């Protein structure tokens, strides 16, 4: 569970998160959308403390992100993250990419880490790529490995920052399929994406952000079907991304 309580963030004079208050319950999949620069990445990076904020609170599983009672490492082990550009480690093979944080952060033994890695490779359908290096994989395959790498630490929450935006169209679905399966398994997810088909099928809620503000925070059905109750800028945004 993630609780945002009046969170504000500034870059100098630029107010990038404006009084964000919302809750992502356990097992919920929340899609965050909005124009570029609206603060979506900043918002989810605050959850695993990759970004900080000036006021308000964010609680992850009941503990404040800034609390000294839990280290950054412990927080990030509970919150996995997947990036737009995959960010696999180019000098490590696929299996080592999945093992490295298990070894270094969780201090798992090599055998245990590998066993976990093999199971995750099965889960993302890339067992045969274990020995390959990232640059020999397609974008879709790289992103699936990146998901496996994040899952290797057994997180309770997964954050996705535009996981399919850097992909060729024909590879988007293989990644969305992995995410859909993850959601079906009950993972708590915050997904920044403009894949509205995915949002419709998988999300329990949709959050629309603009200029650092949460403009909409409602159930998926409401968001797509009850368009009359949506704000003007939400409708404009939806028109733009659904028109093609």
């Amino acid at each position, binding site marked *: 569970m993630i609780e945002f309580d009046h969170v504000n963030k500034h870059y100098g004079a630029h107010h990038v998160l404006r009084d964000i208050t919302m809750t992502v319950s356990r097992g919920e999949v929340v899609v965050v959308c909005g124009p570029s620069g609206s603060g979506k990445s900043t918002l989810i990076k605050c959850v695993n403390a990759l970004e900080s904020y000036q006021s308000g609170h964010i609680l992850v599983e009941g503990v404040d992100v800034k609390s000294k009672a839990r280290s950054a*490492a412990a927080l990030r082990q509970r919150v996995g993250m997947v990036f737009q550009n995959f960010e696999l*480690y180019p000098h490590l093979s696929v299996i080592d990419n999945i093992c*490295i944080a298990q070894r270094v952060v969780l201090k798992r033994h090599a055998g245990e880490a590998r066993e976990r890695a093999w199971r995750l490779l099965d889960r993302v359908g890339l067992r045969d790529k274990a020995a390959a290096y990232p640059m*020999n994989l397609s974008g879709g395959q790289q992103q699936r490995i990146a998901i496996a790498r994040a899952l290797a630490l057994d997180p309770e929450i997964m954050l996705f920052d535009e996981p399919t935006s850097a992909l060729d169209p024909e590879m988007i679905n293989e990644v969305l399929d992995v995410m859909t399966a993850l959601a079906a398994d009950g993972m708590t997810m915050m997904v920044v994406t403009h894949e509205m088909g995915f949002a419709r099928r998988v999300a329990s809620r949709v959050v629309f952000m603009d200029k650092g503000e949460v403009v909409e925070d409602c159930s998926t059905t409401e968001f797509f079907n009850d368009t009359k109750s949506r704000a003007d800028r939400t409708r404009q945004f939806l028109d733009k991304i659904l028109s093609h």
Partner: protein
Amino acid sequence: MNYQWNWSLLLDEPYAGWLLAGLGWTVALSVVGWVIALPLGTAIGIARTSSSRWLRVLSGFYVSVFRNIPLLLQMFVWFFVVPELLPDRLGLWFKRDLPNPEFWTAALALAFYTSGRLAELFRAGLQAVPRGQVMAADATGMSRPQALRHVIMPQALRIILPPLTSEFLSIVKNSSLALTIGVLELTAQSRQIENFTFHGFEAFGAATAFYMLVALILNLVMVSLRRTLTLPVAV
């Protein structure tokens, strides 16, 4: 030109022995200098990219001092000035009891000078690793040292490998400046042979051949290192 070539003279005693001894000192200076400079330069290079302002300022100062003062001057300072500045007992030990004081002074001067250059190299390499990689390591809970060790440094090393090998070549060449404070390394020995025999061409030729041999070997080492370290390219 009426010059009597006599290459075989280089094989005669005592000249062959001189050359070999010179070679030994050159190799020793370069290796000792490198063994000190590499970890020092790495540490200072890391400090240059630290999030602590203090560390960045201090390491920046270190780099500008050791990199910008000519090596020859640094050798003189280490040899003539530093022992005077040390506490009496230590200074005396330095001048009188330390075996081969010229050698150790020259090796230290080389090491500090080279460490400044290596620090800049490592800084550039570390900063060339994409920020997304650092973020990915952070996001999996790695601490700064862990990310450095497992994610950033391995990539930085691959980036700086070619200039790193040429820094080693530089330290070999720069070691010849040690002759100015009396280390009888290769160049000094060639000069001495020239003084004794007036066969400067052969003596300096032998030294030149050695420096070129080192360059050649280093090149081979670099090529094979590069082959083992280079990431498989998309096929």
